[in-house]
């Protein structure tokens, strides 16, 4: 099971990586949306993506749009992990296929439970 962790904060990437590694995920990290696009092109077997919204170069929402456009055949389970919570933004991400939304700061066990639930649902579909 492979997960992509996208956040401009090294601290957040470390925290998410530890949580997911402990649950058996191999992890790939990206520091902004543009980096994430490169990483997911090189790792198309990624099943779970943890995605921040506010990042330099390319935001999480812009990454989603670019990924849908450039890689229409892959559909990993995506969860937003962000400080943002505005309904219009949540709706926009949802329309782009995002499966969950977590507001920072986060509890590791909650993220792991979400990752397991969504990747199991993905495997069953």
């Amino acid at each position, binding site marked *: 099971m492979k997960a992509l962790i996208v956040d401009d904060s090294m601290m957040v990437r470390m925290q998410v990586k530890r949580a997911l590694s402990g649950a058996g995920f191999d992890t790939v990290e990206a520091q902004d949306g543009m980096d994430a696009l490169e990483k997911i092109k090189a790792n198309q077997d990624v099943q779970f993506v943890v995605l921040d919204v506010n990042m330099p170069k390319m935001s999480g929402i812009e990454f989603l749009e670019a990924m849908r456009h450039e890689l229409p055949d892959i559909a990993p389970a995506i969860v937003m992990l962000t400080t943002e919570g505005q309904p219009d933004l949540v709706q926009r991400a949802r329309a782009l296929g995002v499966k*969950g939304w977590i507001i920072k700061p986060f509890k590791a066990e909650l993220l792991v439970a979400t990752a397991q639930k*969504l990747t199991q649902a993905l495997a069953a579909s």
Partner: protein
Amino acid sequence: MPPRNEAQSKILEVFQQEVLDHFQQTVEFTTDKTAHEPSLNTSPKLLSLISFMSEAAQGNLHLLCSLQELPELLPDFKSFFAEDELPPVTDPIWADAFGELANQLLGRFKNEIYNYGITLQMGVPSIVQSLHIEPVSSKYSSWDDTFCVAGEGFNLSVYISMLMGENFELKDYSKESNESMMSTGDMMIF
């Protein structure tokens, strides 16, 4: 310096409350409390400044702190490490963590102020680290309300720009109920 108008006073009041709530919550989130005994009793120095560039729509958040005291501001991240593996405060990870702290503080403020009908756009954190960040005295400025950083020992600064939506005026300060609004700690699965 007194805020220019009541709306700005409200902004400062809400922000202050959100900062207090954040620290209360991160202590609660720190599960391994025995490792470093995270506590707010150490009264770490954190100075936050919200400056407004105009009567209405543009502002900045500045957070300043002492690098030495930064780990106390981040109890959940501090407890991430075993005691003998705690990176020294000079490790860039702490400056990064400070940027994320500013991001999370402004983020929860943004979500709260949205309930008052104000939409806020925020930039990404810019972090400045130096041996000592000198206060800028108002005597060097032609603006009579330029803020000053008083006191010494602040050597880490993070800056986030913010842009208020058109409805910034916040006439009646009433909190509108907005059930679909998410706030800190919330999770939603679609």
